[in-house]
C-alpha cells in the first residue's frame, strides 16, 4: 500500500515558486557581476600607475628596485583585469545570467504547458458532454432499458466501469456546463426549463461554469420541490460515546485516529462532534467533525446530512448543515468558557462532511468569528472551494473513489494544500467495489499511511503538515481532550 502526495511545501507549485525566486536571485547576482566588471575595468587605466611606471625607470629608483616596482605594477594590473574579464566578473555575469534565463524559461514553459493541457482537457470534456446532452433521448432510453452503469459497462467492456475507469467521473463532472448546453440544443423545452431554473437560483443560463451548472440543476429540481431547504436548524448537546469510553485519550493520536473517530460518528444519525484540546498556554484548540451523507432522498428532511446539503454546498450555496456545525462549535466553546476566543479551529469531514468543512473555511461570516487554521477532508470533492491560502488543507482521496472526482477538477497544488491519493484497486477489503473505495474505514487506512510517512519523515509536505497541526493531536495537547457531540436537526418546513 503506497500513497501519492501532491501539493504542500514539497509540491510542484512551491518548487516552481522557489525556482522563480531563484531566477530573481540569479539575475540580481548577474547584474551585480556586470557592474563589478565595469568598475574593475574603469579602475585599470590609472594615471597613478602610469606615473609610477615612468618614475620606476628613473635612476633614483635603482635598476633592481625599479624593475621590482614595474613587475609589481604590471602584476597588480594583470590581476585586476583578470578579475574583471571572462574568467572573472564578466564571465560570472554571463554564467549567472544564462542560468537565470534557463530557470525562468523552464518555469514559464511548464506553467503554460500545464495551462494549455488543462484548457484543452476542459474543452474536450465540454464537447463530449454537449454531444451526450444533445443525444439524451437515446441515452435515457438505453439507461432505462439496461441501467445507466450497465450501458457504460457495455461500452467499456467492464462490470464496474467507474471503479475500473474513474476518469469517467472527471469527464462527466468537469463537462457539466457542456452537458447543459447539449440538453438545451436537443429540446427547446429544456432550454426554457433551464432558463426558469437559472432565474430561480440566480445563476446565468446557459451555465458557463461548474457552479452555475450545479446551481441550475438545483434550481430545476427545486421547481419540483426537490433539493429545497428552508426553515432553520436546531443544535442539541447529546451524550458522546467517545467521552464515556475513553475520556483521557480522546485527543486523536494521529490522522488515523481522527478518521476512526469519523467512522464512529458516521454510525450515529445527524451528529456533529466538537473536540476541545487543551493547550499549554491555557487556551484550547478545537476540532469540528462532520460525517458524510446519511440520507439520499432528494427531499430535505430533518437530518441535514443529506443529498440536499450535498448539492447546495457543491453549487456554492448556503446550507443549514454548516450553520448547525457553526452553532455546535459556538455551543462547545461557550460550555468551556471560551466563547468568542480566537482559538485555532480544525474542520474535518468525510464525503459531505469534507464538503461542509471546506465550505465553512470559505465562509467569511464564520471565519470572522472563528480562526480556522486547518481543514481535513476524506473522499470529498473540494477542489473548487476557494479556501484561503492561510488555511492548511489536507485532502485524502482514493483513485477509485468517484466522490472526490465529482467536481471534475484537481485540488490546487499550493504550499498550504496537500492531497494524498491512494490506489485501492488491489486492496483486498475493497475488492473492486466502488462503494467500499469511498468508505471512511478505507480512508482511516490511508490515514495510517500518512501517519507512517510522518513518523519516517519520507515526505516533506506531510512532515510540514504534521508539524503545523501538532496542537490538534495528543502529542501537542496539555491534558485530556473534551469530546462534545451535538444532534443537528432541520426544523421548520421540513422539521419534526
Amino acid at each position, binding site marked *: 500500500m503506497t500513497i501519492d502526495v501532491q501539493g504542500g511545501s*514539497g509540491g510542484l507549485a512551491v518548487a516552481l515558486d522557489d525556482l522563480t525566486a531563484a531566477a530573481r536571485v540569479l539575475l540580481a547576482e548577474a547584474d551585480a557581476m556586470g557592474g563589478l566588471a565595469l568598475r574593475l575595468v574603469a579602475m585599470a587605466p590609472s594615471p597613478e600607475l602610469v606615473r*609610477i611606471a615612468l618614475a620606476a625607470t628613473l635612476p633614483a629608483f635603482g635598476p633592481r*628596485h625599479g624593475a621590482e616596482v614595474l613587475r609589481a605594477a604590471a602584476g597588480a594590473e594583470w590581476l585586476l583585469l583578470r578579475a574583471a574579464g571572462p574568467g572573472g566578473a564578466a564571465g560570472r555575469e554571463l554564467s549567472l545570467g544564462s542560468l537565470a534565463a534557463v530557470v525562468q524559461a523552464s518555469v514559464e514553459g511548464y506553467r503554460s504547458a500545464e495551462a494549455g493541457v488543462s484548457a484543452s482537457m476542459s474543452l474536450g470534456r465540454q464537447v463530449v458532454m454537449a454531444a451526450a446532452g444533445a443525444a439524451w433521448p437515446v441515452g435515457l432510453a438505453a439507461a432505462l432499458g439496461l441501467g445507466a452503469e450497465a450501458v457504460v459497462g457495455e461500452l467499456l467492456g467492464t462490470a464496474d466501469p467507474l471503479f475500473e475507469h474513474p476518469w469517467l467521473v472527471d469527464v462527466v463532472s468537469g463537462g457539466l456546463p457542456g452537458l447543459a448546453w447539449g440538453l438545451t440544443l436537443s429540446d427547446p423545452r429544456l432550454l426554457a426549463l433551464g432558463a426558469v431554473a437559472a432565474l430561480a437560483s440566480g445563476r446565468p443560463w446557459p451555465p458557463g461554469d461548474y457552479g452555475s451548472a450545479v446551481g441550475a440543476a438545483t434550481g430545476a429540481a427545486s421547481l419540483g420541490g426537490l433539493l429545497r431547504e428552508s426553515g432553520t436548524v436546531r443544535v442539541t448537546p447529546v451524550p458522546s460515546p467517545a467521552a464515556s469510553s475513553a475520556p483521557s485519550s480522546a485527543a486523536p493520536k494521529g490522522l488515523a485516529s481522527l478518521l476512526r473517530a469519523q467512522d464512529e460518528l458516521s454510525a450515529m444519525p445527524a451528529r456533529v462532534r466538537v473536540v476541545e484540546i487543551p493547550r499549554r498556554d491555557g487556551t484550547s484548540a478545537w476540532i469540528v467533525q462532520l460525517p458524510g451523507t446519511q440520507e439520499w432522498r432528494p427531499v430535505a428532511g430533518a437530518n441535514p446530512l443529506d443529498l440536499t446539503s450535498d448539492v447546495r454546498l457543491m453549487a456554492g450555496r448556503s446550507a443549514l448543515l454548516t450553520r448547525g456545525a457553526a452553532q455546535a462549535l459556538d455551543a462547545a466553546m461557550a460550555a468551556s468558557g471560551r466563547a468568542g476566543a480566537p482559538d485555532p479551529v480544525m474542520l474535518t469531514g468525510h464525503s459531505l462532511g469534507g464538503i461542509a468543512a471546506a465550505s465553512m473555511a470559505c465562509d467569511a461570516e464564520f471565519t470572522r468569528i472563528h480562526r480556522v487554521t486547518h481543514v481535513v477532508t476524506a473522499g470529498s470533492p473540494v477542489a473548487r472551494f476557494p479556501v484561503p491560502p492561510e488555511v492548511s488543507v489536507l485532502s485524502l482521496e482514493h483513485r477509485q473513489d468517484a466522490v472526490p472526482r465529482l467536481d471534475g477538477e484537481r485540488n490546487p497544488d499550493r504550499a498550504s494544500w496537500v492531497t494524498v491519493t491512494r490506489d485501492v484497486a488491489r486492496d483486498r477489503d475493497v475488492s473492486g467495489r466502488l462503494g467500499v473505495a469511498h468508505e471512511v474505514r478505507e480512508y482511516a487506512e490511508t490515514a495510517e499511511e500518512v501517519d507512517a510517512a510522518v513518523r519516517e519523515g519520507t515526505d516533506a509536505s506531510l512532515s510540514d503538515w504534521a508539524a503545523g497541526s501538532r496542537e490538534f493531536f495528543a502529542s501537542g495537547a496539555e491534558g485530556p481532550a473534551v469530546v462534545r457531540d451535538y444532534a443537528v436537526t432541520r426544523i421548520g418546513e421540513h422539521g419534526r
Partner: protein
Amino acid sequence: MNLGVNPSPELSGRGRELRLLGDQVRLGARRLGGLVDLRWQSRAAEAFRARVRHETREQLNLADALDEAAAAFDRLAALVHGG
C-alpha cells in the same frame, strides 16, 4: 628608503576597495548558496542544486581573485612608498 614617488590616496586605497568588492562578492555567493535549499525532490532539482553549488564556488573564487589583486596593490603601494 624614500623613492621620491609618493603614492596617492587612490593607489593606497585601491587594495581596500578591492577587498570590499571581494566581501560583496562573498555575500552574493552566500545568497546563491541559499538557493540549494529547495524542497523540491527530483533529478532536475538535483541538477539545479549541483549547478548552483558550482556557481557559488565560482563566486568564491572571484572573491579570492579580488583579494589577490588587493594584496598586489598593497604590495605595490608599499614598494613605491618605502621600498
